[in-house]
């Protein structure tokens, strides 16, 4: 996946960290200290469609570009998460029991075009 930089407007992954202390949740979430949420943003031109992680294959991108140039009607695609991982939490529930769980698909690791 590609990390978002200041100049690029293409599909990329933006890092976003939610600090549990900052939002007042540190009293009931024991671990971790925050949530690396991250999200996907940016443009997905036609020739980038269907490329997980955008730079997965240069040749695929070139072939898609040729297809796109020859296409009669352009179809947009979206910049979406292509790789995610669970968020492990250790927290107090409403009865002050302590729960450890992995919430699946909570952290965006990579983005790509649909």
């Amino acid at each position, binding site marked *: 996946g590609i990390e978002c930089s200041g100049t690029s407007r293409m599909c990329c992954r933006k890092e*976003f960290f*939610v600090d549990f202390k900052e*939002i007042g*949740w540190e*009293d*009931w979430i*024991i671990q971790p200290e925050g*949530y690396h*949420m991250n*999200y*996907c*943003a940016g443009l*997905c031109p036609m020739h980038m469609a269907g490329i997980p992680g955008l730079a997965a294959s240069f040749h695929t991108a070139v072939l898609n570009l040729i297809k796109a140039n020859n296409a009669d009607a352009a*179809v*947009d*695609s*979206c*910049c*979406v998460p292509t790789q995610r991982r669970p*968020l492990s*939490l250790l*927290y*107090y*529930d*409403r*009865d*002050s*029991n*302590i*729960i*450890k*769980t*992995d*919430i*699946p698909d*909570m952290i965006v690791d990579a983005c790509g075009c*649909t």
Partner: protein
Amino acid sequence: APQGGLCPACGLAALPPASQRDVLIAVAKQSILSKLRLPDRPNITHPTSRGALLSALRRMRAQHTDTTVSPGMPHDSSIPPLRPGAGVQEFELLSFAESGSSTSRSVRLHFHFTQELPGSTEILQATLYLFWAVPGPGIHPITIKFLQPDPTGLSMTTVSETRLEVQRAGWVTLDVGQAVRSLFGRGSQSLTVELEVAEDWSSPLLAGHNDSHWPFVAAQARVRMPHRVQRR
């Protein structure tokens, strides 16, 4: 997929940076609470001491890697190892005891499990951890009773009973999976355990002296899948 020429997340980019941050934090909060099936953030009135928590986590880790079982108390071998599939959310639960009535020969412990568990969750395994301080050398028999309130609610009746022999001071584990499953099957949240020793120990458990010896139940559970067919 794009809908009406717009991608679902495109609206975020149109917001000013400060609003973007507020929206993302709101999304993060809502996402965590909904995945934990919590209507709102819990308000913690009685946080567990750090000593008790660290000790419990260490014991759980040691238990996972230790194949030895307590004498006379084999763990249920029919429980399969945890292999979470895609989308299956598993939990490990730690419930610390609340002390009930006690004498020099017996003590009652109450465990209140989470409100979200009964009915919606499958208990895979549950283990009671107790720290004993034996009065001297030799074998010390202990009777452990699982109690439930009788229909009138005025007194407790014994549901099951087991005996344990302790030879030295230290942690002892007891499989309470069946007791917890039966409890949840009745829609109850509370487990009451009575520990009784044969001789006068003045205090059967060390819990009152040290936070890190506080008794607890560690359970492994997973969200019950509605489409699963179970054969008994």
